[in-house]
């Protein structure tokens, strides 16, 4: 326990950085991912193509490579310089997680049966009304559980930032394994618990929501 007790201030810094990246990139990727999903279900061809190409390219790129791109290639290629550390982590993780948010939202919208919207239109609802009263409430049910799983993966992915000069939880374990050689196992165990404290409740929430929100057709 010593490495945690004697460095509790640094532990909070590390936890804070993990949370900052997870929350900031989480919120941004939700916005960008929803926009991408809207692109992918829109009736406008070019938007669909853009969404599909973006998702296919970014989803098939390892997150580590995305970090490396912003570290060495984005400046000479696009003149785009992003501060090393937390800002870079937020940008890379936003672009990456957005692809998974997009796919979760798109699957949810597509899971609504055509007849639902047709029925809504046939009783004279406008496009906005169809969306807000019929399609969205049903899509929401199929989107939330997978979306929570996206964010469980997202929280764990913040650890990649440890390799790119961010002092977060995994980096904390890495750094203090040197001064506390006898406590290495406890150190990793503790950091693992910190992650489980975030991921397991979310996972359980996803499972119970899934049971609760299931649509009986």
């Amino acid at each position, binding site marked *: 326990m010593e490495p945690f007790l004697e460095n509790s201030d640094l532990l909070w810094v590390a936890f804070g950085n993990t949370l900052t990246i997870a929350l900031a990139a989480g919120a941004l990727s939700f916005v960008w991912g929803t926009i991408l999903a809207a692109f992918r*279900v829109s009736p*406008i061809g*070019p938007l669909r193509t853009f969404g599909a190409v973006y998702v296919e390219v970014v989803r098939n790129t390892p997150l580590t490579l995305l970090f*490396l791109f912003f570290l060495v*290639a984005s400046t000479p290629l696009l003149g785009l310089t992003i501060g090393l550390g937390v800002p870079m982590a937020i940008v890379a993780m936003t672009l990456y997680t957005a692809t998974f948010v997009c796919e979760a939202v798109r699957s949810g919208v597509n899971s609504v049966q*055509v007849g639902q919207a047709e029925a809504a239109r046939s009783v004279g609802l406008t496009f906005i009304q169809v969306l807000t009263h019929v399609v969205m409430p049903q899509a929401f049910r199929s989107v939330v559980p997978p979306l929570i799983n996206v964010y469980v993966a997202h929280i*764990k992915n*913040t650890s990649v930032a440890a390799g790119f000069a961010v002092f977060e939880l995994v980096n904390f374990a890495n750094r203090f394994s040197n001064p506390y050689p006898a406590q290495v196992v406890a150190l*990793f165990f503790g950091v693992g618990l910190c992650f489980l404290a975030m991921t397991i409740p979310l996972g359980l929430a996803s499972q119970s929501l899934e049971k609760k929100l299931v649509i009986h057709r």
Partner: protein
Amino acid sequence: MSAQQVLYDKPGPKAIFRDKIYNVVFTLAFLALIAWIIYTANQRGVFNDRWSVLWDPPRNQTAWDVWSSLLITGLWGTLKPVLIAIPIVMVLATVITVVRTSTKWWARVPARVVTEVFRGIPVLLVMYFGVIALEMKPLHAVVLGLVVYNMAVVAEILRAGIAALPNGQREAGLSIGLTPLQTTMQIQLPQAVRIMLPALVSQAVVLLKDSALGFVIAYTELLTTGRRNYNYFGEESKVVFILVIAAMYIGINMLVSRLAHWLERRLGSRSKVVVAEAPKVPGALTAGGVGLEARTPDDRR
């Protein structure tokens, strides 16, 4: 059944005209975006002779030196832990799945705990643990990280596959006198593997992408050799090597994803088992990856 049909009626003449205008506008917008990227890159001299590093490299190197380092050292370094990890994952995941379907609670509960815990911690943490606490070689640590995480996920996929089978399969197995273990191994698992094959292949993409984490723990794989190359050839070659590596990853992963889709179609038409409902895997969206939910319902075209 595409989303347009859910959200929009069949377009009338007015809507078709409007859509045509939008089409032109957005096509122009994206062409402008691409043009801007090329223009900016060109302004910064990206299209100069720096690309010749790929066929006629400077500093006493040959094209063979560059490509052998990228392909033989790098790509093989990326594929090696994947090829070692996959069989181990398959065996361990099968064991966990069998234990999880056990009739004894004292066997089921630990297996559940193992899957939940190993699914919830970052792969990189396990890799660091291998290097620092277990004093493993980087290769072994990468394999450890990949195995620990993926066995939990694959076990969960297989469990979902078994859950999706009709109950009659298990009942029939038991009624002809097979033991519960035999029923799981000989009746349920083979069918579960079959219906979950696309998900399992997608998980292989995740595993491949996660092997790039080896870069962080100083394992020699594709990113590491790319960095060695651009450090040697200098500032200008950075863009070249990053883009080449990205193209290699995206190419390989797209190939594997296509394989998953192909398998899905092939098996979809031949499967004799009537699956009660589309199998769902809670938490299958993963550390770096192509998730299941993201692929299940509608990607099956």
